[in-house]
């Protein structure tokens, strides 16, 4: 009985849903090249979320969109001073607050 409960839990891929209060927020994929944003919440399956964190994208961090690839799909971000690429559909799982572009 006990065993069953654990197994059934581990079979379900742990997934984090974006909380209701953030549903209206912009997503990382909405950024334009050169814009910066603060990460508010990261959705998606656990593996993806952990991977992002391992690579340095955490809630409250600032990320900058450098550019899109020539075929417009993966995007190039600047995170913690280094460059990272991410697909748009994955970036769509990341809620952000866009920071008004005051640099330059």
């Amino acid at each position: 009985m006990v065993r069953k409960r654990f197994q059934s839990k581990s079979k379900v891929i742990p997934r984090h849903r974006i909380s209701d209060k953030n549903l209206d927020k912009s997503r990382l994929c909405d950024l334009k090249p050169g814009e910066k944003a603060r990460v508010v919440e990261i959705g998606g399956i656990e593996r993806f979320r952990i991977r992002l964190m391992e690579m340095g994208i955490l809630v409250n961090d600032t990320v900058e969109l450098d550019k899109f690839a020539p075929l417009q799909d993966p995007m190039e971000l600047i995170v913690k001073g280094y460059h990272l690429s991410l697909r748009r559909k994955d970036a769509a799982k990341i809620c952000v607050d866009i920071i008004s572009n005051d640099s330059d």
Partner: protein
Amino acid sequence: MADLTIAIAGNPNSGKTTIFNALTGARQRVGNWPGVTVERKEGRLSYQNHSFQVIDLPGTYSLSSYSLEETIARNYIIDESPDVVLDIVDASNLQRNLYLSTQLIELGAPLVIALNMMDIAEEKGLEIDTKTLSVLLGVAIVPVVGRTGFGIDKLKATINDVALKSPQRRRIQIPYPHEIEEEIQAISEELANRSIAEDRLRWKSIKLLERDDTSINKLKQIKNSEIIINNIEDSIQHIETIYNDTSGAIISHARYGFIQGAIQECVRETKVTPRDYSRSIDKILTNRWLGLPVFALMMWIMFKITYDIGAYPTDWIDYGVTRLMNILNGMLPESMISSLLVDGVIGGVGAVAIFLPNIFILFFIITLFEDSGYMARVAFIMDRIMHAIGLHGKAFIPLLMGFGCNVPAIMGTRILETRRDRILTILLNPFMSCSARLPVYVLVAGAFFPTHAATVIFSLYLFGIVIAIASGKLFSKTILTGMSRPFVMELPQYQLPTVRSLLLHTWERGYVFIQKMGTVILVGSIIIWTLGYFPRNVTLSRDYSTEREEIRIWLEQKTVQIEQKFKESVTIGESQYTSTMIPFEKSESYQLLQSQRDSLRNSILYQYDEELTNLQYAEMAETMKQRWIGRVGRLLEPLVAPLGFTWREGVALFSGFVAKEIVVSTYGVLFGVGENVSEESRGVIESLRHSGMTPRVALGFLIFTLLYTPCLATVAAIKRETASWKYTIFSIGYSFTLAWLLAFIVFQLGSVFNWVS
């Protein structure tokens, strides 16, 4: 004295390999991790009478068990307990790099941190107080610059100290918020009380709390662990309710929190505007408009260099092999042994050795792309396309390498994170036309499409890619459904790789090919030779030596006749000659007669050569047909007849299964020009043209060669990398069926529409 061991851990692109090379010099051995196929590099370091074994762990960003590399690195540290774990940290990217360090600290590894790329950090305006950082992390830290060798001596000394456990260092714990600490404490106690674990309690508890698959599965295998598993699940639920997030994410955040705290105390950022030269380079290389054309240009240059520059050393090797064979043929008395040695071993392996320059140049360029950081951009540029066939942009790299040799390329699929991506890339790889197939193309296209050879060959490469794309779509919709993993990839700083490391990596890769030559291809060549050499006594339908003699007599007679005719004409001409100013022998009419005689003689000689060659080919063909090789070919004939192939193509393709390079040398043996190697390929081209093959059949043959079952070495690589007979057999069956069908279509449709007659 037993050796001490050092394991090198670190993020990809942190300069791990450079430091490994700096520590071990050229004394290194490349192999595989047992059971899996991630590259394992091992070297030696001597320091003050101590001898260290240095193991290069796979580069990872973390020690979660989401990828094979992470699992290997983790298991090695846990199971083998190295005396020192050297963690290479990129000082210019401290935060992210220290994330792995925190896990190594948690693991309780005897750690030394090499703070690499200090020069770049300085350029970025980062001032790092290594002493304080060392105290905060409880780890010895040595600043180094791998590329220049700065700090390496100090690093060696520190490793030595830590290995000898002097001085004892205070171990620290990565602190977590107290709610988590409570749960860690509870799990630790339970693990200890139930004597499930004795050491690394904290690490194990944290991993369980993170829902780490490997740890949970391990625990599940222990008897009566249901209760504790249940309790752990409760702990996780407890934490997750408090923080409204998953436990893994909470723990990751806590680790970063610790790192941020440490960095705030130790790193001073002086305000400089760093020249981000990588970004400047990327303004062109990954530019929206220029990115793709520049990439295409790079590919074009790569192939141009590989084949054009490679042509010179290829010629030298060709010349050397030929000379060697001629010399040996002259020295050794004719016997079975000498034929085996010269025609079988040297001829067969020599035919493959010719590709060494191409392969080494190609690997050199691919290594240059990788080590400079361009490979990651290739993945970035190509991801959209690769994603369309259900693959990660990175999969482009092993597919690209497939153009060199499928064996290392299939090994290269290890850079992919998931088994599904790996298997899909492995299955598509054989359609990337490897360089071993090129000589077959050159030979056959050269013989049948001499004016369009380059176009035909280029189209074949392209066709392979088209087939790969179509197959990829098919596979990802049928047998390999499921999503491709999230694409989260670092675009590292561009850097100028050192010549030394470039050469070293090129050598490591090329060595695989040399091994293949020394084993599979050697054995294959000997088998093919044996099949072509026995049985010795064959009964031929014609008496070739008599016929040869007849032709020779015919030539003699003709020559005499021509001479007689000439003499007669001269006599007649002389009698009619009137001029006394110039002797007849110097007159125009005499010279005319002379040139008439010469041209007649030449045409007779040419005819003689022609007939003698035809006779020789006919004899060889008949002999070979009766040898074992011909019997195998005739056995295969019904299978390949619908494609317009004869037994000869059957044999060539059969032997090509051993290695595609052998197709050419098999033709050499089949046409009997293997013994007369001075103009080997010209001889084979002539023989091919005489063999009755038509351009249409030749095109089918080329397509068959492109697509059919990869060589034995590739099959071995597929088996090793997929660790599954099912996929291996599937790969063989699929490619063979596809090759047969397409060659069939070309042949049959061609005969309907009368294409390429």
